[in-house]
Structures are given as C-alpha cells and as structure tokens.
C-alpha cells in the first residue's frame, strides 16, 4: 500500500491509519477512544477523500507495496484484537446473531482480514444470517445481475436483432440470390430509429443517453481526482488500464441503477456514495468476492440509496421527508444539546445549516473525512444496535437518519470552541472544510448525545 511518509509526531496511535487489506497477519491499530473533552483539531490541508481508493486498488493489482507498508508503532491494544476475534467468531457461527453483530460493528470494524465487506453485506441484508444459505443466495444474485446487464445495457440494434431472430429463421440469408432486388420486410412493432413514440426502444435509448453522459462525466471525474491527487499521469499503461476498468464498472452500476429506478434516475453525488461501497468490496481478500465486487456493490448501493433517495429528489425538498426537513431536524438536535452553539451559529453569525449540512447529509459524510475515516463512520451508521432488526423501509431510514444527525451534531460540538470564536466567513469555511479529527472520539460523542436525549 503506498502511503506518504508521516512526520514523527503524527506517529502516535491517536490518528487513524490506512487499511492494508491484503495481509491477514498484520493488524492496523484502531485508535483507542480517549475521552479528551476538546481535542485539538489538526490543521491540515483539507483531506482529500478519494485517493485511498486508487492507492488500495493499485496495491491489489501491483502487489509491490510490501516493503512500502509503513505502520505507526504497532501498538495493538488488547481491545482491538479481542474485537476482531469476537467479530470473526460471530461470523463463523452457523446462524449469525444480527443484534450481536450490530453491537460489535458499531464499535468499529477492524480493517484487516476483509471482515468489513462480509459484515456490511450482513448488515444490509445482502446475505441471510444462516450461513448455509449463502451459496444459494449468491448464485441467485449473480443470475439476477446478469439478467440486468443483459437486459438493460444493450443498445436497440441488438434488441431488434434478438426480436427478429426469434421470429424468423436465419436461413433466409442463404435464400438471397446473388443478384436481384433486396427483399423488403416489415419492421417489428413499428420500431425504427427515428421513432418518436413514447414506448419505442429507440426513443428511450436516445433519452437515456443524456443520463448516461452525465454518469460518464461524474465517474471520470471521480477517478481522475483520485489519480491526479496521487500525482500519476493517467496515461501510464497500468494506470490507464486501471482507470478504464474502474470507470467501466462504476459506470455500469450507475446506469443499471438509473434504468431500474426511473423515478430518481441518476443525480450527481450518487457516485460519491458509491465509491466507499465499491472500495470495500473490491478489496475483499477473498478472490471470488473481489471479482464479483461490481455485482455486490450494485445491490448494496440500491439498499443504501433507499435511505437517502428522498434527499436526492428535488420535488421532495420542501416536504416532510425532504432534505430541508432533515436539516431542520439536525438543527433542532443541536439546539437541544448545545443551545449556546446553536444560537451563535444560526442567529448571531447566520450560518444557515443548509450551507454545510446539505453535503454532510446527502452524501452520508463521505466528502468530509479521509477515506478510512468515512469507512469507520459508515460502520457505525449501518450498524446502529438500537435500530430495528427486521426493518421496514421507513423504520430503517428513520434510524439511520437519526444516527447520521447525531454524528453531524457531534461534529459541530467537537469544534464548538472555534465556531464560537468565529464569524460568518470563518465558520462557513471551517464547516465546509471540516478539519480531520479522531473518528472514534467523534463517534463516542455522538453516542453520548443519544444517551442524553433519551434521558
């Protein structure tokens, strides 16, 4: 894994480290939550969220990073090791107890041994809790995805060809004489490329091209930011192959999603939510799982988007489920817990929460922290132990949202000193480029917020 050399003072176990997923023996230390009342936020250049994706991908492909792998002093706490072994123990049971898994996962999933990908799959109900059913379930999902690609990713020429080969025999070709008028034939169901009919496959195809173009642009941009932030020229051979492969996979996932959900289609920003999912599954040390990363990401992406789809829909902006009301809820939460800060932010400095919270909430905090941190946050979001076990859609949405809002509140509370001292510009700047902090501490505070509001 390629990593920048860090100065000595940063080498304490307080800061999160980058995962090295392919080595099972090495544990990367998870920072121990130290209950400091107000931790010093690190003033850094704003953390670029994505570079880790390509770094990790490269490491999987190139496998040259063994010597480059740098660790902060390997101080595995007994807690980390025990948590890892607890998780492994839980996962290897025949019928997995989801509640127990949740409890363990909400403390953070260790980055080694590919546990995260399996745990996420269980938490999002991609895999059933009974281990015996896994093989059957995976096979079913595989065929379903293949069905999607076959049906939705073909262009109309191929569709018409399939339509007519099913209705007439190929032997017509040989009957054609060498010389003579070419036979004209009826077009099936009035389908021709210039058709303007609503149900015409050609017409739909041309309408879809717009969405596909936008998806292309966004995916390209996503990958280019990763690559360019590493300072590698995208035309180097291996990188360009990687670039192309990643682009194709992400593109397919988003296109299939857009076609399956004509209501929400594709909205800019979904690519950011897709990135961590794809990363986690692609870096699964289990070969087979890594190969089917695209398929798994797609299904899980659909699940995750269900929670946040209302935020992406513009018409729902002002409704009860829309983004505005969620932001208001967050604001209320902040008011309950820290009225002084709330008043300072919203009334005195007039920092409208929409300016910063919009991105936090719609993109599930992927843009605010570096990659490893956002994975950690997602662990907590997905595994809220007090959430419903067998969830109906809206219940789950409610619980995930609640956790998310608590984390957002915690983010605000952690930098309250700086916020209280700042004016509109400096506060806005700070909130839009949130300084990196100790994630475990952040989650700890978020958890405490829950306890207080219940009490």
């Amino acid at each position: 894994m390629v990593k920048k050399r860090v100065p000595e003072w940063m080498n304490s176990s307080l800061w999160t480290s980058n995962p090295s997923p392919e080595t099972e023996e090495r544990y990367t230390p998870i920072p121990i939550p130290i209950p400091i009342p107000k931790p010093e936020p690190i003033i850094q250049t704003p953390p670029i969220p994505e570079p880790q994706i390509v770094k990790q991908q490269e490491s999987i492909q190139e496998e040259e990073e063994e010597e480059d792998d740098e660790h902060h002093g390997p101080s595995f706490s007994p807690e980390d090791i025990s948590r890892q072994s607890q998780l492994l123990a839980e996962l290897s049971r025949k019928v997995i107890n989801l509640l127990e898994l949740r409890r363990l996962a909400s403390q953070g999933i260790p980055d080694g041994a590919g546990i995260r990908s399996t745990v996420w799959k269980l938490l999002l109900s991609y895999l059933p809790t009974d281990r015996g059913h896994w093989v059957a379930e995976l096979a079913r999902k595989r065929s379903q995805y293949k069905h999607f690609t076959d049906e939705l990713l073909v262009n109309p020429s191929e569709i018409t060809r399939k339509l007519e080969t099913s209705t007439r025999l190929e032997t017509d070709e040989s009957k054609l004489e060498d010389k003579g008028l070419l036979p004209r034939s009826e077009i099936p169901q009035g389908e021709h490329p210039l058709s303007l009919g609503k149900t015409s496959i050609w017409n739909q195809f041309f309408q879809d091209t717009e969405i596909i173009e936008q998806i292309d642009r966004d995916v390209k941009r996503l990958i280019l930011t990763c690559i360019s932030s590493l300072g590698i020229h995208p035309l180097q051979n291996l990188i360009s192959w990687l670039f192309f492969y990643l682009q194709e996979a992400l593109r397919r996932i988003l296109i299939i999603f857009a076609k399956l959900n004509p209501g929400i289609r594709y909205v800019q920003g979904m690519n950011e939510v897709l990135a961590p999912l794809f990363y986690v599954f692609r870096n699964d040390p289990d070969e087979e799982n890594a190969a089917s990363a695209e398929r798994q990401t797609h299904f899980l992406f659909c699940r995750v988007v269900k929670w946040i789809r209302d935020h992406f829909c513009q018409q729902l902006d002002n409704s009860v489920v829309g983004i505005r009301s969620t932001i208001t809820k967050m604001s209320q939460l902040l008011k309950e817990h820290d009225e002084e800060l709330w008043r300072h932010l919203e009334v005195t400095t007039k920092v409208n929460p929409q300016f910063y919270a919009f991105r936090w909430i719609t993109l599930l905090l992927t843009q605010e922290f570096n990659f490893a941190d956002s994975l950690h946050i997602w662990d907590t979001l997905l595994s809220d132990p007090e959430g419903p076990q067998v969830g109906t859609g809206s219940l789950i949405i409610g619980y995930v949202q609640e956790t998310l809002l608590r984390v957002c509140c915690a983010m605000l509370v952690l930098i309250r000193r700086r916020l209280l001292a700042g004016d509109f510009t400096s506060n806005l700047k700070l909130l839009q480029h949130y300084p990196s902090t100790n994630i475990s501490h952040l989650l700890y505070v978020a958890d405490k917020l829950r306890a207080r509001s219940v009490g």
Partner: protein
Amino acid sequence: MVLVLALGDLHIPHRAADLPPKFKSMLVPGKIQHIICTGNLCIKEVHDYLKSLCPDMHITRGEYDEDARYPETKTLTIGQFKLGLCHGHQVVPWGDLDSLAMLQRQLDVDILVTGHTHQFKAYKHEGGVVINPGSATGAYSSITYDVNPSFVLMDIDALRVVVYVYELIDGEVKVDKIDFKKTATSQSAH
C-alpha cells in the same frame, strides 16, 4: 451501432419548397452520426440545415447544385463497411444496374449510394449493394412526375447493416427495413 442518414435530390427551391413536415419532425439532431447526400440539394440553406442535424456530412455534386465545389464521387468507411457516394447523373444509362455495378467496382466499396432517378431502390449484386434513397422531397425527375418522398437510414453494426426505408405514401410515413450482412469473403474488386 452507427446511424447513417442517406438522402438526396431535394431540389429546393426549384422543384420543391421543403422537406415534408412529417419527415422534418422525425429528423432531430443528436440521433444520427453521419449524413450522406447524393446531391441536388440545391442551395446553401439546405446544406446548412443538414449540417445542423449532424456535423459529419458527406455530399457529392448533382447537376443542379449551386455549390460547384462538391466532389463528383466520395468514399468513406464506417465501421466495417466501405460506402461510396455519387449523384448518378454521370452514370449512363441512368439507373442501370450494370453500369452502377461498374462504378461500384471502380470505387471499390461495399455499399454504393446514388440518386438521380428519384426512385427508391436497393439492389444486390456480386460486387455489393446499391442503394438509391430516392428524393426526400418528392420532387419530379427528368423521367417521371410520380415520385414519393423517401429517404434511407442505415444502422451499421459490425458486419450487419439494417436499412430502414422511410417513404411518404398518401400522406403517411411508411417504414420498411432491409437486412443484410457482409459476407466474410469480401467480394470487392482488387
């Protein structure tokens, strides 16, 4: 999946005022990748209109075209197919298949698109295929007054071409299609 529009013999403004409105409503920019035009547009405005449908336009000179700079013949490659373009008034007798076949061998193309007769035709011979898209406006020709407006849209997909024929018969657009594959043993002249 490349869409190629083939049309010609519009004779605007001398013999016809404009394309039939039903055709015009179907021809929107953004769907077609290439336009090949047999000639006799005749004025620059029509050229500009076609260019607005698709920036990649190929045109050969018809005898009434006002722009003298168009070439007499043109060849281009789209996908696996070589297309040849010529107006057709140069080939005598007009519309005669053997003479057109000679031209096709001369240009060494798989599909030859010519016009001038204002009649749609799609013909196959050993050398390849000859397509005549007819007149897109239904303008009268030197041979006959009874002309149905027609044009052709080709869907080129690897080794297979689907030719969609659009004709305006009695005020209604009728679409037919013709399928053919390029055989592996190429039959073009050496």
